[in-house]
């Protein structure tokens, strides 16, 4: 089965990448700074507390041992302890993962079908009014950074103009995000606006190309109804490249939420990352970075496999 061979090879590559990612995180945060303990505590500190921190971090061990201990710990589910809160990282992160996942999933459920529909419809109505308007709008929206977009949304919906939605989320890290539905509307809206332009532009470009292809023309010439041509022949092939972009954007939702969560004060992994960077909470930073990069690697893997599985052309050409 060529497909299984392809997936195994891709999985292996993913594992190697993930290992290299963890090495890079370790190098940047723990090995390259001449003294992480000094970086964490700042200049005004005593030799005793520096020494205590070095002991706690295990900085007196050889670098290779530090790295392997950290990685093996994570593989065993031992993520370490936060400096600042002294909590187990797993305890600190678990509710936040759920919260971020909620934003991510709802954002994706709204933006993916929306952008596929907009992109496909634009391609069908190529150069007509709908296409011109949606292409220009998505071009403009794609350029604006999320925090600028989010602040603009706050201005529109939470202050002077319409006072309908709260500007920040007022939920604890432990509470379920849906316990404050109005508080999650703007964060989700911001994410949807950030993701939709990319996916719809890719979908449009891909669909335009497919609609001009020989096999779509062939299907039409055979006298198939336009509906069958679109749904059976054009859409599945057009979705291939879109999977890549969808996956990248889902991965973006995992990491890019750092901005949106900070802006709306939403208790997820993104705001946890910003907090831990500000407090130089090394173990938390390392773990979150690894987790977010891990989601990225995983999403890319899923995208590659999904593309091959979904695209009839590619599936048959696998060796």
């Amino acid at each position, binding site marked *: 089965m060529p497909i299984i061979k392809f997936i195994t090879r891709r999985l292996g590559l993913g594992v190697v*990448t993930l290992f290299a*990612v963890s090495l890079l995180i370790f190098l940047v*945060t723990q090995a390259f700074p001449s003294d992480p303990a000094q970086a964490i505590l700042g200049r005004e500190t005593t030799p005793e507390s520096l020494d205590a921190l070095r002991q706690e971090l295990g900085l007196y061990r050889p670098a290779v041992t530090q790295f392997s201990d950290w990685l093996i710990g994570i593989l065993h589910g031992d993520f370490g302890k936060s400096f600042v809160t002294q909590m187990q990282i797993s305890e600190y992160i678990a509710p936040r993962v759920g919260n971020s996942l909620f934003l991510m999933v709802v954002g994706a459920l709204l933006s993916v079908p929306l952008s596929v529909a907009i992109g496909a419809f634009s391609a069908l109505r190529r150069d007509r009014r709908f296409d011109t308007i949606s292409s220009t709008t998505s*071009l403009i929206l794609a350029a604006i950074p999320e*925090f600028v977009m989010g602040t603009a949304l706050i201005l529109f919906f939470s202050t*002077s103009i319409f006072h309908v939605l709260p500007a920040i989320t007022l939920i604890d890290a432990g509470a379920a995000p849906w316990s404050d539905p109005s508080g999650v509307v703007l964060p989700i809206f911001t994410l949807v606006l950030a993701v939709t332009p990319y996916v719809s532009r890719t979908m449009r470009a891909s669909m335009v190309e497919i609609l001009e292809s020989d096999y779509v023309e062939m299907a039409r010439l055979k006298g198939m109804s336009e509906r069958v041509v679109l749904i059976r022949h054009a859409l599945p092939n057009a979705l291939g490249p879109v999977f890549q972009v969808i996956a990248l954007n889902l991965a973006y939702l995992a990491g890019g939420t750092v901005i949106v969560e900070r802006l709306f004060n939403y208790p997820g992994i993104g705001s946890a990352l910003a907090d831990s960077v500000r407090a*130089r909470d090394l173990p938390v930073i390392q773990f979150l*970075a690894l987790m977010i990069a891990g989601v990225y690697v995983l999403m890319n893997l899923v995208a590659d496999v999904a593309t091959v599985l979904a695209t009839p052309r590619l599936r048959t050409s696998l060796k």
Partner: protein
Amino acid sequence: MRDQIIATTSDRPVGLVRKALKLRRTKIGLSILIGVGLMAIVGPFFAPHTQTEFIDMPNSLNIPGALFGTDYLGQDVWSRFLIGGRSILLLSLGATTLGLIAGISLGLLAALSKGKIDELIMRIFDVILSFPQILLALLLVSMFDASPWLTILSVGLSTTPRVGRVIRGAALSVVERDFVNAAIALGESRFRILFFEVLPNVTGPLLVEANLRFTYSIATIASLAFLGFAPDPSAANWGTMIQENSTVIVIQPWGAVLPVIAIAVLTIGTGLFGDGLARVSAGIDRGKESVEQ
């Protein structure tokens, strides 16, 4: 007409920009870029106050001599706005330049070398690409003190593989062509082949990519400032201003509104300009604009 557009790929950059400027979006984009860029660069000279000067009660409007009132610390919003674009713009330019130089060199090297070196470079790119741009920057500022150089380095580093992949992709077909083989046979140095034989033939995709990377560098660097990791947290900076003043947006909106508009307009400008370039360079989606004009 369409063939003509696709054939422009190997044009010199100047010709490409000139062609792109026939499109309305490119004109609008370039005007915005020049306008906002000029304002950010010369703005500081026109600021009536210094960036950290206390001029009146915090968060007040209607102050004589302060067009947009004071911010959360009683500093002049208008002055800080005029000053706060320069560092974002310069840091973004620096980061983009660094990312371009590194990305072009590695991308061309990968395309020409093929085999093991190509594979190695691409796998290293994959590793860096596993980090969202903002995450890589956050990782670096988490353990090293924030400075302009660190910002340029971290954003430039995350830009490198993105540029490198595009350049490699574009160069792959170029290195197969006869004049490259001829150059190799003549014993030209690898450096000469890469930068004088191959590079001039990928300027189209390069220009498009450069512009795209500049847009993202602006977004990443402004976002870093928004998160509180500007090189100098007390200095005026559009990103920092949005963060500082968004909590008081109801009583004194200008402190956040002005920089929001500036960043949005600037990035829309680079976006429009880049889209124009992309259309001309590759006839990317062959919309009406590129065919008719």
